[in-house]
């Protein structure tokens, strides 16, 4: 059905006389709410226009008015309900709501009352704009963005005057030294950044970042303790197929001394035990102890802790980026973005029969870095 078949629209086909177009094709006297035509009235665009119900029927307009008023009233009510919810509901109270499940009572009430209250202000304002404010589009000319040639000439003249008056072109040496001074003035700002880190840890005295990253707390003879209970371990405690997250025995002392968790992020290891016959390769001869292997827990990709150990495949998977390492094959990478194998910690037992590190790691643990080589 074509639009120009309809009677109400026949005056607005775009071919009619311009006098009618100036009012969007609808004469004022036909509207329940006439267009504003006082001082400041804006030119209407030449667009086919159909009046709204609220333009035609005063009753429809009054209905919209009531509807919007109700919205604003409800919004006020919501603000009151919010305060009641804030005062009356306990912060830890729970309530069961179908679909949502058991949820925080206060959070629900506060969110819905506050949200609905705010929403209704917006809905009312927009309904007002859509139904009661004029919906005949007006037209405005764009102004030229570029300056007039005369203005450009003026600007250029002023620039030339400034250049001459300052002597910026004439005093060559002065100009160049100024540019030099301006080029150097940010240097202090850059230099100031240097002390964002100062190596004031006596244990790390004189070490560069790369050197700090290359060593951990592990030393020969340091016992391995279970992460959590911090109990030392005997080899027979770990079953074949078992997995233990381990730390050096002095981890809590280090933490208390440095007030940081830094060492945890470097020295954390996992111990796994497999049938010695399953071990195809290690990073050093006899670095295992009766099939117990110790590997760093920190991924060599970007440093996530990693302990997704599959005890039948001997694969270790990183949950962050899915690098996969084969612990039965010297911790080599078999899948994913990590380029380096998991560093292995050589282990043995001390005279009391507890598992200890035989030495520190032979290579830096954790994420790769430039000086690593």
């Amino acid at each position, binding site marked *: 059905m074509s639009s120009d078949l309809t009677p109400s629209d026949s005056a607005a086909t775009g071919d009619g006389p311009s006098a009618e177009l100036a009012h969007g094709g609808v004469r004022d006297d036909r509207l329940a709410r006439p267009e504003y035509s006082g001082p400041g009235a804006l030119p209407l665009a030449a667009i086919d226009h*159909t009046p*709204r*119900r*609220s333009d035609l029927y005063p009753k429809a307009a009054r209905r919209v008015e009531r509807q919007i008023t109700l919205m604003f009233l409800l919004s006020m009510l919501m603000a009151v309900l919010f305060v009641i919810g804030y005062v009356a509901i306990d912060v830890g109270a*729970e309530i069961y709501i179908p*679909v*949502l*499940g*058991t*949820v*925080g009572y206060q*959070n*629900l009430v506060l*969110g819905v009352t506050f949200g609905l209250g705010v929403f209704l202000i917006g809905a009312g304002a*927009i309904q007002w704009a*859509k*139904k009661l404010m004029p*919906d005949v589009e007006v037209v405005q000319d764009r102004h030229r963005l570029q300056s007039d040639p005369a203005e450009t000439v003026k600007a250029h003249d002023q620039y030339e005057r400034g250049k001459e008056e300052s002597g910026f072109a004439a005093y060559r040496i002065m100009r160049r030294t100024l540019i030099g001074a301006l080029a150097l003035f940010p240097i202090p700002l850059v230099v100031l950044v240097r002390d964002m880190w100062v190596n004031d840890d006596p244990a790390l005295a004189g070490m560069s970042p790369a050197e700090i990253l290359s060593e951990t707390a592990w030393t020969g003879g340091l016992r391995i303790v*279970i*992460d*959590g*209970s911090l109990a030392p*371990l*005997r080899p*027979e*405690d*770990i*079953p*074949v*197929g*078992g*997995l*233990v*997250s381990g730390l050096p025995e002095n981890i809590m002392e280090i933490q208390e001394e440095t007030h940081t968790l830094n060492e945890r992020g470097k020295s954390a290891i996992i111990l*796994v*035990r497999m*049938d010695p*016959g399953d071990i195809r390769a290690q990073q050093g001869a006899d670095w295992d102890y009766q*099939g117990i292997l110790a590997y760093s827990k920190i991924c060599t990709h970007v440093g996530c*802790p*990693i*302990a*997704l*150990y*599959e*005890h*039948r*495949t001997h*694969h270790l*998977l990183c*949950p962050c980026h*899915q690098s*996969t390492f084969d612990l039965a094959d010297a911790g080599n990478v078999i*899948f994913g973005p990590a380029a380096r194998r998991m560093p292995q910690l050589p282990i043995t037992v001390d005279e009391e029969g507890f598992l200890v590190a035989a030495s520190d790691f032979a290579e830096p643990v954790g994420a790769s870095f430039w000086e690593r080589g």
Partner: protein
Amino acid sequence: MGLVLLLLALGVVGGVYGVATTTPSSADAALVGDQTQIEEGRRLYLEGCSSCHGLNAEGAASGPTLIGVGAASVHFQVATGRMPLAAPGAQAPVKKDIYSSEEVLAMAAYIASLAPGPAIPTAEQIDYTDADVAEGGVLFRINCAQCHQAAGQGGALTQGKYAPSLMEASPQEIYEAMLTGPQNMPIFNDKTLPTEEKQAVIAYIMELQEAPSPGGLSLGRLGPVVEGLFLWTAVFAALIGAAVWIGIRAR
């Protein structure tokens, strides 16, 4: 091949020896189980399991040996419906179990009679009422969350394998899983994770299962991916819907 299997079996036996000795009462009960129960278990085993695991549970190409896996392992695998396997795949999924609990116990007794292994935990062992939930949370994040996710919703492993969600798991299943290391899960015996710590972990998982969601609809507690998905679907439908409503002309 046979040698490897034998070594593996010995390894498992050796590894869980400590368990068997620390819980003598239950282990003895499982070992010495009543003879008719063992016979019934053997019959069920031959019917339902022997085609993969061999006539004497010695293992075959399609299934590992069950000698020394213990009653706990049988109970975990069969009671959760993981075994018997419906179809070969990356991993045995949980399904409705087809045996009655007596039948499961009979099979467990039969397998336990072949060699010592972890016994089905006693009611006392899985009683977590006095356990410290917060400590359990710490242990859960150290030992479990890397695979089962911090909220216990499960996660992906390599090559299509996965760590299942813990939301339906019972205390007994959790205890058995830690003890026996089903499928690719590592074993947490009573030395690396003592009974009290296991109880704490169970208490924390039970807390996770029952925890309300203080902030409203929990979106499966799967983290930012689901939140992003919800944002780009429901939330943007609402926001763009509002924009369209403002844009269309009233009538």
